[in-house]
């Protein structure tokens, strides 16, 4: 019996203090628990404060940055077909160049006293319209130069202030990256402006062709009428 008691005691001692699987189990449990909880452990007051700061940032200071809850559709930032501008009245009023030369012709006839005077007046009137067109086109030329000048300040890119301890250095890199991306947005904005200007100047050139187009339509009509005259 004494032997049996001694055996039991030895067995329990080994089981309680020596058995490796049991020792590993509680040790691992502590580590697992710590890993699962991460920085949210409430072992110290700093952990609590950190969790509160994170929550304040996420829900109060910058909820969009944390949740990514930005709906671009609400911004109304795309150009749609409904945004077209009605220019019918402006074109008719001559804002985009002369529409009819009837009044000019009447004025020249009324004011000219000789054939030479008439030719001079025609030439003056033609030059007036030509200079108008030239000044419009020249303004585009200088506007393009101005934009070219303005965007020079957005070309500058230097990588600095990224030094620091550990994650501070990464924060610096991220900060720099944001600046370079903002420069990219600025450059793309200028690109939009330049493309808009390009469309406008192409429109101006197209407008120049409309007088010639009218003359050609007139000639074409005359040609067609001549055919019908012959038929009649």
């Amino acid at each position, binding site marked *: 019996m004494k032997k049996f008691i001694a055996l039991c005691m030895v067995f329990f001692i080994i089981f309680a203090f020596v058995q490796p699987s049991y020792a590993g189990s509680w040790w691992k449990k502590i580590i697992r628990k710590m890993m699962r909880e991460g920085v949210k452990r409430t072992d110290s007051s700093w952990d609590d404060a950190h969790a509160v700061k994170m929550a304040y940032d996420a829900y109060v200071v910058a909820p969009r940055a944390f949740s990514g809850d930005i709906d671009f559709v609400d911004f109304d930032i795309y150009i749609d077909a409904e945004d077209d501008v009605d220019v019918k009245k402006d074109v008719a009023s001559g804002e985009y160049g002369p529409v009819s030369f009837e009044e000019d012709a009447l004025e020249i006839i009324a004011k000219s006293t000789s054939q030479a005077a008439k030719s001079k007046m025609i030439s003056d009137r033609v030059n007036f319209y030509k200079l108008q067109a*030239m000044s419009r086109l020249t303004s585009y030329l200088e506007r393009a130069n101005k934009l070219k000048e303005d965007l020079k300040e957005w070309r500058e890119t230097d990588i600095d202030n990224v030094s620091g301890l550990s994650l501070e250095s990464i924060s610096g890199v991220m900060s720099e990256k944001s600046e370079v991306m903002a420069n*990219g947005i600025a450059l793309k904005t200028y690109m939009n402006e330049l493309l808009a200007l390009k469309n406008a100047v192409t429109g101006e050139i197209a407008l120049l062709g409309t007088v010639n187009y009218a003359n050609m339509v007139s000639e074409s009509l005359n040609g067609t009428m001549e055919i019908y005259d012959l038929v009649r």
Partner: protein
Amino acid sequence: MKKFVLSLILVFSVTSFAFATVPVARTDNILEQLFLARYTEMQTWLEKTAFSITNPQTLGDLKALPEKLKSLKKDLDRFTDFSGDIRKLTGHVYKKGDEVLGGLDGDLGEYIDMRDIMSGNFDRVLSKIENEIKDIPIDTGDGPETEDREMKKAAAASSVRGVMESISTVPMSLPSIETATAINTISESPSTVARKQNVISASSGAKMNLMEEYASYIARYDGKDSIHRKKIEKILKETENIVESSKEYAEKIKDMEAQQAIARVGADQIAMLAMQNVLLANINDTLADEITLLAKIGLAETEEYANAIKKSLEDYIDIYSVIRGDK
């Protein structure tokens, strides 16, 4: 004795099972205490070193961004004002300039050398025009030097520069130069054949001047040795260097700390984004050049436009002349 043995077995069993059901709450074990002390030390390190920002400049770019973007908006607003001003002022400079040059007191003819014009050299006449145009009074408003007034002044200077650039592109399209050249052609042509020859030569000179303008754009953007191609090659070379540098980091990564590697790769990404910005800036310059070229093509088109207007006017005049009984 039996009772004692049974009670001993019971005590050992209960304590052993109880210990197994409480896995982490114990803190009296020396190992646990050591571990928790180490853990607290680690948290302190995270707080003081890893997560802390000791240099206020680290996030300086982020702090400066709102102001920077505000300046972009301001620049665009100023550009809108500039556009409005320059449209008005350019018309004024053209009108007044042509009046000064082609008016009764105009002496432009003296500066027109037919041999120069025939070879496409308009330097003398353009120098004379520049002198006249820069003295044209432009109203930029009175009062203190406000931002608005500064913008008007910039627009005034630009309009003079723009008019000069346009005239140097299509000099023969400026009515005063055309008239002065016509008068010189008449006086320097002893016969009808010579006059026709001079007219063709002068128009060829005008064409040559325009061809030089257009060709300068082709040379800038087309061909292996063009400035455009060289810039692009440089950008690609720089990007290649950045990518190579990233590759080196990746190969050495086992010798580095992960955070250090992230910072380095991040810096490379900034450099690549910067290269994209360089490309964007070049695209913008190219677009600006395209607008200038289009405007110059448009300026040359004004001759056809003027001829079309002349024909249209003459057609109307013919109609009204018949109505009035002049014909």
